[in-house]
């Protein structure tokens, strides 16, 4: 009996330890299903039932603690998905399982093999790439991450690639470069524009989740410009501004006014590959800190030189190696990565194709050193 007890208790302790380990680990079950859609909603609802049931079964079988993030009907939305990803807290032993059932699509420009999820919306700016979810999860400390999307992957017109936003970069490929070059290098003269005409007010707008989108005219002007640019269109300033005016007028009932008094230049500029013009030479101490950082990311220079400049520059530019640096997407707010200054600068040393770093926001101490920095990264992909 005593021998049995001697053997039994260690074994019992081992079992309890193992059970304790399983219970300290979680299965984060994230399910989004567009159950309201008139054509596929009923099928999506069955998917929702089947998958939530399966995830509960998996948790029961494995002893993993089930954390549920189930969104269907009108709750299947981009804002809720972003909210889940922003709030998700995982431990290293956890499993994260993401599942989506609904409409999907892709852009002509998308390079990812995986689609964009429509998440119950009919509007391009509400679509989220499936691969974006994986990228966000990859930054989290969980042991196993699974991402499933049951949706179409066909190319639809007017779908923009979100891959720049998902990677936090602007990528300047040939089409946008040519379009920007045409508009900004091949015209001379004057343009003036205002968001409303005499006697009218101009308004600011919010996104559906209540966050500020900006001035209406600015929004529609940038959209008109970026539509031309991202599609590599051979448009002129009249087209850009007339589209912006019509969109603004129809949306918010005030009418922009503009006057385009330009002519094309005699010498036509053609687009060429953008270049990182920053240099790591700051012997006169006059270079702006952001330009020094851009220079470290310039792959024209030997990596050893970039590292040397990095080591020399880190204590000059940042108040400490642990200063928080955020990289954001094109909208200036979507945070794609958060790093310590030291890690950020190390990453800069090995970058390729970086054209520019945009200083979006910052805080500085009394010595002018960054205590916080938010940047947007611009790359080239010019064939």
């Amino acid at each position, binding site marked *: 009996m005593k021998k049995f007890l001697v053997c039994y208790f260690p074994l019992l302790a081992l079992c309890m330890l193992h059970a304790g380990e399983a219970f300290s680990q979680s299965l984060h079950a994230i399910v989004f299903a567009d159950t309201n859609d008139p054509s596929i909603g009923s099928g999506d609802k069955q998917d929702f039932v089947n998958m939530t049931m399966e995830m509960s079964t998996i948790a029961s079988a494995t002893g993993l603690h089930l954390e549920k993030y189930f969104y269907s009907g009108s709750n299947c939305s981009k804002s809720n998905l972003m909210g889940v990803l922003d709030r998700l807290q995982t431990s290293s032993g956890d499993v994260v399982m993401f599942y989506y059932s609904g*409409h999907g699509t892709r852009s002509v420009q998308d390079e990812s093999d995986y689609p964009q999820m429509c998440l119950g919306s009919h509007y*391009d700016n509400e679509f989220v790439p499936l691969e974006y979810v994986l990228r966000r999860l990859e930054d989290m400390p969980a042991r196993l991450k699974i991402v499933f999307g049951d949706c179409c992957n066909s190319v639809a017109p007017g779908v923009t690639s979100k891959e720049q936003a998902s990677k936090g970069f602007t990528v300047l490929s040939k089409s946008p470069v040519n379009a920007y070059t045409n508009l900004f290098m091949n015209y001379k003269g004057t343009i003036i524009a205002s968001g409303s005409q005499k006697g009218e007010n101009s308004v600011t707008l919010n996104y559906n989740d209540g966050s500020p989108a900006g001035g209406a005219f600015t929004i529609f002007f940038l959209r008109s410009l970026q539509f031309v640019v991202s599609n590599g269109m051979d448009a002129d300033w009249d087209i850009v501004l007339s589209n912006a005016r019509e969109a603004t007028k129809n949306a918010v009932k005030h009418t922009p006014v503009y006057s385009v008094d330009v002519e094309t230049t005699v010498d036509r500029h053609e687009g060429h590959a953008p270049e990182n013009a920053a240099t790591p030479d700051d012997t006169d101490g006059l270079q702006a800190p952001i330009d020094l950082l851009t220079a470290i990311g310039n792959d024209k220079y030997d990596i050893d030189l970039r590292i040397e400049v990095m080591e020399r520059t880190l204590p000059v530019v940042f108040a400490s190696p642990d200063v928080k640096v955020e990289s954001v997407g094109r909208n200036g707010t979507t945070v794609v990565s958060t790093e310590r200054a030291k890690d950020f600068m190390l990453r800069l040393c090995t970058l390729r194709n970086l054209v520019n770093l945009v200083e979006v926001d910052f805080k500085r101490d009394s010595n002018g050193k960054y205590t916080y920095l938010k940047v947007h990264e611009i790359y080239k992909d010019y064939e």
Partner: protein
Amino acid sequence: MFRHWDSAFVNGLDGSKRVVVYKLNPLADSVASGKGRSIVGFSVVGRAQSLTVEQLAVLRFILGNEKSYVYDAPVVKTLFAPYFAIEVNGEDGDMYLLLAFNTSELAFAKEGKIVKKVAWGCKDLLVQFGLELFPGDEYLSSITMY
């Protein structure tokens, strides 16, 4: 029975004073309530030249041919995103034919709403037709890649 709508549209093609082809940006978002110029809720971003006599004949042929349609197509998990809208002015007023290449569907629309949507099985013909109207169109050219 949808075959009423294709006949009505073909009759409209024949009798219309004007046949206009518009290019759409069907997934354009709206920050506020307005959507800009639109056809049945889909934003208009361009317009082709008037159809030639030959192009009208091609369209009539495609729409009038039963083999153009697929009767038992499954429901697809992507949004109906028409790229073209063809407007005719018939005796009964304006009618629109919306062509979606991502779902391989066409829809007939009247008085601001879609009255019938049906799958089509003549993708190559319609892509070719579209490229004649908008030569070098990036989206149409990309469809042939898949």
